């Protein structure tokens, strides 16, 4: 299944890769140049040894290029070097230094390039995920997105940092070795490399083969983790049913399975290393023996034999890594594709003129319709008006469209028909950031950022004074609660901090919204987890505070509803009733039934308490 999914990402999107490179491309080039220098320097080491052995110590002719020999002659030739053998040793150390420095540069540059690439990718993803429309987030899975933004980015980064240069290095090394070796002796070169292709193909085939065992081992580990997790989260159930023994058996089975599958994988690796070592050393042996035979015949010098054997040994490792590199290339391509998929989602756009008119808080819905798809209307033909400073309460069952209605006002969605006017301007013509910052909203399940309570409340106004923050918290009836925490306003909440109860979160979110000082505010059932007394206290404090704020409240608490200037009753996406408490109570309908609960309660109490019941 994984395979099928991966197929659609088989191709690298070069345009995307290029744009993510943004200024870091040259570092790849630098790294490649440094790599070339390092390879050349690395190959010089054995040549110096060979030169020393053949020319300086032995009496053979030198096979070094003419310009090097001229330099040697200028120094004083063989005699000088024989007397000062340290020069050869120093040359060897110097070339290692060059090699070392170039290797350092290669790794440093590629680190700069790949980390820059990864940073650009992360930034782009983060920015983009904030810019895509609300609807995308509503349907996407957080876990999957986070995985793409983290582990997929890392897979691509790792490939660039480790494998990209590895490919180049293999190519450079093989070609440089070929050049040097072929210039020494063609037959000997061919013999020295006869098994290398076998090694490359073998490693390629091998890494294709172990993929399956890798998957099995990964799956077994996943099973082990999830079994453990289930046991730990369900520890109460395990104990309450006295199932410790059967849980242990279950865990043991998973633990054994993971051990066996992974052990098998490791053994496969052992087989790979063992057999590729065999091939590699056989190649070295062939080279050595042929070299010996050639040297005996006088066709090669001792130094040259040493060059061949050293080079072959240097080549076997990169060649046998080739299979792994190619396997990783496949993985990186898939990961890049998964990242690309996110970046391809279109961002939220401005449908109109993006103006910034003065917003006082007058709102009008004119025949507004809305649906997530063409077949199913969530809201149809909604029309009403709200004057600045009015309180509008919305009542309706789950799925009646209450939340969609206020989301339209925030322009988290666009109306499919009709229009919404704020102070006479169609909201589609107001810049969305401007519009949203003039409409405060508290969601039913508010989200707090992982930072201190103080920072959360003051998040829209980073320059706010502590007094302002405390004042907002007091209105939201959460000041006392916060002071009850050990660290007070500096308590960290959210993901990595203290977990607040639903009601506490709602109240902190109310305080945060108040800091916006918006002319329009919305409570999307945002006091549902707050007890009725606190609810009343918050509403009283709000009433005292607000001067001319248009307020929308979604609630089914009758005490909240009856204080509103206007109540909207929604059923199945239609506005079935609107009016004041007095008007609606007089009419048959949902509102009247809710309003009459008090009567039902009194009847119930009277029944339970018998004759003494009732007031």
């Amino acid at each position, binding site marked *: 299944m994984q395979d099928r999914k991966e197929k659609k990402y088989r191709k690298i999107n070069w345009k995307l890769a290029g744009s993510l490179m943004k200024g870091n491309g040259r570092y790849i080039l630098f790294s490649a140049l440094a790599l070339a220098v390092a390879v050349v320097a690395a190959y010089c080491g054995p040549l110096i*040894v060979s030169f020393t052995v053949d020319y300086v*110590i032995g009496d053979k002719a030198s096979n070094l290029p003419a310009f090097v020999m001229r330099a040697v002659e200028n120094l004083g030739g063989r005699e000088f070097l*024989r007397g000062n*053998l340290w020069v050869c*040793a120093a040359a*060897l150390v110097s070339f*290692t230094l060059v090699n070392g420095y170039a*290797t*350092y540069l290669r790794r440093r540059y590629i*680190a700069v390039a790949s*980390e*820059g690439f990864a940073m650009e990718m*992360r*930034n782009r993803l983060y920015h983009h*995920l*904030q810019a895509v429309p609300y609807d995308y987030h509503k349907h996407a899975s957080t876990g999957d997105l986070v995985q793409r933004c*983290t582990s997929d980015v890392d897979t691509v980064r790792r490939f660039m940092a480790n494998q990209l240069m590895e490919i180049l290095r293999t190519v450079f090394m093989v070609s440089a070795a070929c050049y040097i070796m072929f210039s020494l002796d063609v037959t000997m070169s061919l013999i020295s490399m006869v098994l290398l292709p076998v090694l490359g193909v073998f490693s390629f085939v091998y890494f294709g083969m172990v993929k399956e065992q890798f998957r099995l081992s990964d799956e077994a*580990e996943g099973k082990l*983790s999830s079994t*453990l*997790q289930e*046991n730990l989260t369900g*520890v*109460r*159930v395990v*104990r*309450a*049913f006295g199932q410790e023994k059967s849980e*242990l058996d279950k865990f043991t089975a998973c633990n054994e399975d993971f*051990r066996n599958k992974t052990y098998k994988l*490791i*053994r496969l690796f*052992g087989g790979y290393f*063992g057999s590729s*070592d*065999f091939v590699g*050393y*056989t190649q070295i*042996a062939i080279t050595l*023996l042929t070299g*010996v035979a050639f040297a*005996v015949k006088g066709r090669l010098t*001792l130094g040259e*034999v040493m060059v061949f054997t050293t080079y072959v040994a240097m080549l076997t490792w990169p060649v046998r890594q080739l299979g792994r590199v190619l396997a990783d290339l496949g993985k990186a391509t898939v990961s890049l594709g998964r990242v690309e998929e996110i970046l391809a989602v279109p961002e939220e756009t401005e449908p109109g003129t993006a103006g910034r008119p003065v917003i006082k808080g007058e709102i009008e819905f004119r025949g507004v319709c809305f649906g997530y798809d063409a077949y199913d209307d969530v809201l149809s033909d909604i029309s009403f008006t709200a004057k600045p400073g009015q309180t509008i309460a919305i009542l309706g069952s789950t799925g*009646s469209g209450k939340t969609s209605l206020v989301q339209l006002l925030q322009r988290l969605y666009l109306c499919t028909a009709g229009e919404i006017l704020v102070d006479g301007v169609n909201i589609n013509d107001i810049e969305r*950031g401007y519009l*949203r910052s003039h409409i405060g909203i508290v969601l039913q399940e508010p*989200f707090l950022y992982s930072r201190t309570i103080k920072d959360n409340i003051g*998040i*829209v106004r980073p320059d706010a004074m502590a007094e302002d923050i405390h004042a907002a918290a007091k209105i939201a009836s959460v000041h006392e609660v916060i002071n009850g925490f050990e660290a007070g306003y500096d308590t960290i909440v*959210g993901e*990595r901090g*203290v977990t607040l109860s639903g009601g506490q979160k709602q109240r902190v979110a109310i305080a945060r919204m108040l800091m916006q000082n918006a002319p329009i505010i919305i409570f999307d059932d945002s006091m549902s987890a707050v007890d009725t007394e606190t609810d009343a206290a918050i509403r009283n404090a709000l009433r005292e505070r607000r001067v001319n704020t248009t307020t929308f409240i979604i609630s*089914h608490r*009758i005490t909240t509803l009856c204080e509103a200037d206007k109540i909207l009753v929604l059923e199945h996406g239609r506005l079935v009733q609107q009016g004041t408490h007095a008007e609606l109570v007089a009419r048959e309908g*949902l509102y009247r039934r*809710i309003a009459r*609960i008090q009567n*039902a309660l009194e009847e119930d109490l009277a029944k339970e*308490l018998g004759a003494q019941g009732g007031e």
Partner: protein
Amino acid sequence: MSNTAIEEQDYDRDLKVDIGIWKRLFRYVLSNKRACVLSVVTNMVIALIDIAYPLMSRYAIDNFIGKGTTQGILPFILLYFVLITAQAFGVYSFVAQAGRIEMNVSFDIRQQAFKKLQELSFSFYDKTAVGYLMARMVSDVGRLSELLSWGFVDLLWASTYVVGVMIAMLLLNWKLALLALVVIPPLAVISLYFKKRILQYQRKVRKTNSRITGAFNEGIMGAVTTKTLVREKANYGEFSELSGTMRQASVKAAVWSAIFMPIVMFLGSIGTGIALYKGGVDVMIGAIGFGTLSAFVSYTMNFFEPIQQLAGILAELQSAQASAERVIGLIDTPLEIVDSPEVVEKYGDNFHPKRENWEPITGEVEFEHVDFSYKEGECVLCDFSLHVKPGENIALVGETGAGKSTIVNLVCRFYEPTSGRVLIDGRDYRERSQLWLQAGLGYVLQTPHLFSGTIRDNIAYGRKDATEQEIREAAQMVRAEEFILRQERGYDTEVGEGGARLSTGEKQLISFARVILANPRIFVLDEATSSVDTETEQLIQEAITKVLRGRTSFIVAHRLSTIRSADRILVIRGGRITEQGTHRELLKLRGYYYNLYTTQFREEASGAILDEKAIEN
């Protein structure tokens, strides 16, 4: 959660290597006798072969090339291929033995820790986050077993190789050997220093990386809030700062490892240079042959590999110290609730119960002057006394934190009283085993927990030997069968991890069926506050009524219907019973219960009206 955060900080610094802990961990390695012996043997063989190759070349150079003859080359070839073949098998065995040790060590540690986790009391689970335990059990154990096993075999190889090469060099020419070996001490010191620094930087990268993951998580989960607060720019600003830090830290870590290798190579080449220089002079004066020179050059070129490996193992040990402490700490956690040896003798332990000696439970529960506190000096229950007759239904109401759950946990012996006694059927429950009580107890949680597996497996969780007939009867009793049969594969439907494929209401019904099948005498219910649709709500209420019938029960109640039908309602405030009696009696008091009831009534009633509307949809 908070203690997890604090403890994770231990991972940020290098702790002192505590030999005692590593000795204990190493026992897990040594318990694999065969693999250990095989590892020692193979490593010796491989190291010796590694040492032999340059000697083979030396022989070839001196005897064939030097003398200009190929006489005797056949045995030489043969020996060479014997070596190669032996090495191939050696390498295979090396990897296989290390793998075997690694997997057995992690298996054993996990097994032991898991057993421990099944015995630890709830006070432990209240203080310890599941995520923390998962990290110990999965990644820490994995890391330690990898380090112990591969570290062990690498150590064997590297030390054999180093010692072997030294001996070989000294035997070939001790003067030259001593000169070439001069580079080893600085090589070792520098390697250790760098390895440590590199690990430190890598740790910083990992830490920043987890912050990035957190930031993505927050950015995605809080996307709507960010939109409504128009925080996109500010958030992006903060994020790009973080990703900038990440880039910087990663480049730094990479640069440190990039510097390390060249330095090691350079030091190594000094050794080679010395060999070439002094050896070359020796060759010229005829003190040694070309072959010896070539062997010296090869040895000095390969020396830095084992040295830096040894340094790496040392550095790893230090950086894994925190993991080692945590894992050993988990295995060593003392048990707070332990059955006395006499009790274990008679009733058996958690894994080997002696059911034949268990007395049946009738379900009488008594609290006798019970005090209880989670923390010293903070009394949650004070001098609490309560007598519950067999079959009586008790509803507990009161605010969060008043002590309702504590009472329930004490009944289940998830905790034991700080002072006073809890009697089951007239005897202190500490005179019987934990399993005796818990196996006779039914418990349904606020958030129902199912295990992955089929619906059937889940219903039969408490009684693995139940027949098909009994399972179906239990499901029918709570009217769960209807929805079960609606599933594609009926009772064989997989519920998914944690029951994820079922709705909350469905999970609740299954957890009731599970209790019915186990048929406990004492039943504990922590009622859910989250609402389910009206229809399921009705089914659940019926199920509760069925489960309660004839059983002693304690209910942390939220629904009016459940509260109303209880035999006795206890209002718990501040660890004491402030009001108790039947629904009607308590209403007459017009106290706390009266207020609670009237508020709740309004909420439930308006909720019900709105739900009706939703269902019409």
